[in-house]
């Protein structure tokens, strides 16, 4: 898969918000996702989801007549594995925990 597509898909606050929504509750329908996307048409949300799907950041499963969207973290894991050395992980976790404690959970999540 094209890594450029992954970064392009991530370079948009709406698409990151969709990934956040799926991270919170995986396997949602378009309608369920639209409820959280204020002032946005169904078509616009569909287009963003398609871009996420093409980047392999969202996987789709049909459950009967419902199309469910899942966050697929595999490309993100590949980015992680590419640049973060194993011995750095515990220190990075400690830094993230500290930042979270000081700033709260939702800070800078746009």
């Amino acid at each position, binding site marked *: 898969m094209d890594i450029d597509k992954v970064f392009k898909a991530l370079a948009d606050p709406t698409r990151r918000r969709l990934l956040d929504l799926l991270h919170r509750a995986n*396997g949602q329908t378009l309608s369920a996702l639209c409820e959280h996307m204020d002032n946005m048409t169904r078509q616009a949300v569909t287009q963003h989801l398609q871009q996420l799907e093409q980047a392999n950041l969202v996987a789709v499963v049909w459950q009967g007549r419902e199309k469910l969207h899942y966050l697929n973290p595999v490309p993100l894991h590949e980015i992680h594995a590419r640049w973060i050395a194993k011995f750095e992980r*515990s220190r990075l976790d400690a830094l993230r925990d500290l930042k979270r404690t000081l700033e709260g959970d939702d800070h800078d999540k746009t």
Partner: protein
Amino acid sequence: MTKPDFVYVTYIATTPQKVWQALIDTDVTRQYWVDPSAGCARVNVSDWKPGSRWEHRRVVDDANTADIVGKVIESTPGRRLVISWARPTEADDDSRHSRVAFDIEPYVDGLVRLTVTHADLERDPQMLAGVSGGWPKVLSNLKTLLETGHALPHSAPAT
């Protein structure tokens, strides 16, 4: 199948047969399933016939300790493998088992699309937390192994 808890997709430049082999052949599994350099390689052992038992075993362990066990539900070589997934202590309690499906499909440009679907994990919330971080690692190791012949780049030991 009930609504899946997780769906993981990866595209690998290889053949469906090689992906299938990597799922069922212990010699291949031990190279990627858990970081082999961490000295805790795991293999999946079964005859992979529908109805047979399978075990996820530790390699460096004379006792062949199994961490996960289950039954083979569906087995179509090169296409689809479905297994149940349980703690060894709950092997006989179907109500606690979750279910994993591996779907292997040829894609364009010599790529194979591998989809791993894990369902019924709400029966065991602790297991849900445990496996959610594990699959992306397993899949990205598998992809690296099949595309380069090595599971992981050499990295410094953990501190």
